[in-house]
């Protein structure tokens, strides 16, 4: 007995929670984390600028909601981020770390722009849009299938593979732009600006309506796909344990290939929406870091498409708001990245308190136990 006592008991003891936490408690913790993050951000803002943080937050809200145009711009931002987040979700659920959404979106966008560039005078706009959509989806799919093929057959590390594919895609875009642009500027500019050929039309006088509506529809489809179909179930099993999946007769290879084809196709679709519905041109920075942000959006939402609407709103709101305060208070644009980073750290960290329990060492009285 006394010998056992001599062993030093650690001050902090961490155990895994036996039961899953009730959902509202988990969300309470996440909410508290966001709140805490906002307070820390406020401190950072005061430290950097000396402005009243409440004024700054007010400015952020104005930046997103002040006018109808700003609201639509916000919606469009959410739609694009959400679309890419939805695209990477099935792969992540399968524990396939696809860090290549950036590349898949870019090749989709490039394929789309190539159609606009080469078929502008041969096809009517409606038909061209269909061809563009098809080309973008195929391009994104191929870009995701290459690493998936090697992962499925030889277990090649997919996160590093897809990461490298991003840069190849970026260089492909640079290559295409450099070979299309003959003037010295080196900038592609709006494609078909005179005819609007291949541009998604405005609906209800809103340029972004089709983008937002498409992504809203995709969210529902993805929710149903993951939750209620056989495919979704297989993805969950493969993600849980590949051996179990094999044991119950799931063909793991074909599930990986199929899921990545789907994932890449959606990234390609996002590329299509970015080119045809938003920018009408292609540049190396077209996706604007959303490929990586999407990973965080999807993960923060625990792969639930409906919750992803919320998380992508949070991120886009922060980024738009931060760039608003950046211009209003004459700060550098990058303040957005700092604030996003801080908030992400808090949300990432708070998961610990949902999954684990912390016990502190209690003082034992002599003779007890």
């Amino acid at each position, binding site marked *: 007995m006394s010998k056992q006592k001599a062993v030093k008991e650690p001050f902090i003891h*961490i*155990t*895994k929670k036996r039961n899953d936490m009730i959902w509202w408690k988990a969300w309470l913790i996440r909410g508290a984390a966001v709140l805490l993050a906002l307070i820390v951000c406020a401190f950072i803002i005061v430290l950097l600028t000396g402005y009243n943080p409440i004024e700054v937050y007010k400015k952020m809200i104005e930046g997103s909601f002040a006018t109808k145009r700003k609201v639509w711009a916000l919606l469009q931002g959410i739609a694009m981020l959400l679309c890419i987040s939805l695209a990477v979700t099935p792969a992540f659920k399968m524990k396939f*770390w696809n*860090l290549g959404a950036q590349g898949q979106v870019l090749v989709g966008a490039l394929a789309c722009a190539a159609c606009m560039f080469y078929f502008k005078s041969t096809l009517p706009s409606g038909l061209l849009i269909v061809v563009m959509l098809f080309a973008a989806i195929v391009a994104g799919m191929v870009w995701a299938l290459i690493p998936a093929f*090697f992962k499925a057959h*030889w*277990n*090649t*590390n997919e*996160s*590093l*593979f897809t*990461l*490298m*594919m991003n*840069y*190849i895609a970026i*260089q*492909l875009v*640079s*290559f295409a732009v*450099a*070979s299309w642009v003959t003037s010295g500027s*080196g900038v592609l500019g709006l494609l078909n600006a005179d005819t609007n050929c291949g541009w998604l039309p405005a609906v209800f006088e809103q340029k972004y309506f089709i983008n937002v509506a498409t992504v809203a529809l995709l969210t529902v489809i993805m929710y149903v796909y993951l939750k209620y179909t056989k495919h979704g179930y297989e993805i969950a099993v493969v993600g849980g344990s590949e051996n179990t999946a094999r044991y119950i007769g799931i063909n793991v290879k074909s599930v990986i290939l199929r899921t990545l084809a789907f994932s890449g196709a959606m990234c390609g679709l996002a590329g299509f929406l970015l080119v045809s519905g938003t920018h009408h041109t292609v540049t190396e920075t077209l996706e604007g*870091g959303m490929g*990586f*942000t999407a*990973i*965080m959006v999807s*993960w923060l939402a625990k792969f639930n498409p409906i919750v992803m609407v919320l998380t992508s709103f949070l991120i886009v709101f922060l980024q738009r708001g931060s760039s608003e305060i950046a211009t209003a208070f*004459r*700060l*550098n*644009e*990058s*303040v*957005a*990245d*700092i604030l*996003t*980073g*801080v908030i*992400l*750290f808090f949300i*990432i*960290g708070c*998961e*610990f308190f949902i*999954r*684990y329990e912390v016990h502190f060492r209690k003082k034992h009285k002599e003779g007890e136990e």
Partner: protein
Amino acid sequence: MNFLNTAATFVNAAIIQGIPLLYGATGEIITEKSGNLNLGIPGIMYVGGISGIIGAYLYEHSVETPAAFWCIVIPFFASLLGSALMALIYSFLTITLRANQNVTGLALTTFGIGVGNFFGGSLLSFFNESGSIAVITTGGYYKTKLPFADSLGLFGETFLSFGFLAYLAVIIAIVASWYLNHTRTGLNLRAVGENPATADAAGINVIRHKYLSTVIGGMIAGLGGLYFVMDYTCGAWTNNGFGDRGWLAIAIVIFALWRPRSAILSSFIFGGLYIICVYIPGLSSAAKELIKMLPYFVTIVVLVVTSLRKKREYQPPASLGLSYFREER
């Protein structure tokens, strides 16, 4: 002779490009050997660079005539401090709070690039000055060559015309290689990366090894950022100037098969691939963009070939990317 001169210039330029990559790769190898896949390295390198610049700026503006010694030492330690803090954020989240390493790393990169660009772009406005930040005096000291480099002709110009940080990078890589392969703690560290549960059972302090190697790895990577801003750009900061070199450093880790000594040559090769398009005569601007694909393409080929050959010593540390929880079976 003309060809020889061009070749020498190319090798020299390749080495200059390779040095920041080597720092990043060595840092990431040490980190990954403990089982932590730190995708925050690109962000850490930005912070390493900007911390050095801030240190230099504050020092240059606090004294009349900056002394060479402090011009070197202050930014150096400022850079180490900055990147150590970044690595600590990552370590705390992934090791203590057992968060997902990929997500944490990506968030850290977003944060780090933001910090770099924010302070790089607006530090001067805090002091009511305008323009972009530049610390030329300190940059000059960092660029000081070996005194006998010029007297050695072409050889001296090609291989000895660097600031001290370049040599330090090679030394650190060699020391890291020796540490991982020939010391007991290095062996323990590798054990932690391969199978933390076994290492734990053998009495190795897993948590401490993971923390130490991630923070030290981060500090080494941060020096890559410092080299870039002090030596390569002579103390001037341009937003996003560091570019995607951080990701390239992670690619080198694979290319070098997790061996710091191979990382030396690999970094110079990648440095060469990064700029080779400038040295091939008669390329159109479009073809140049295709050539720039090479480093990434080569990395993919290496990745595929190593996974095909399935040789044990060519594989990444077995527990790479997984967080360790003692009570989990």
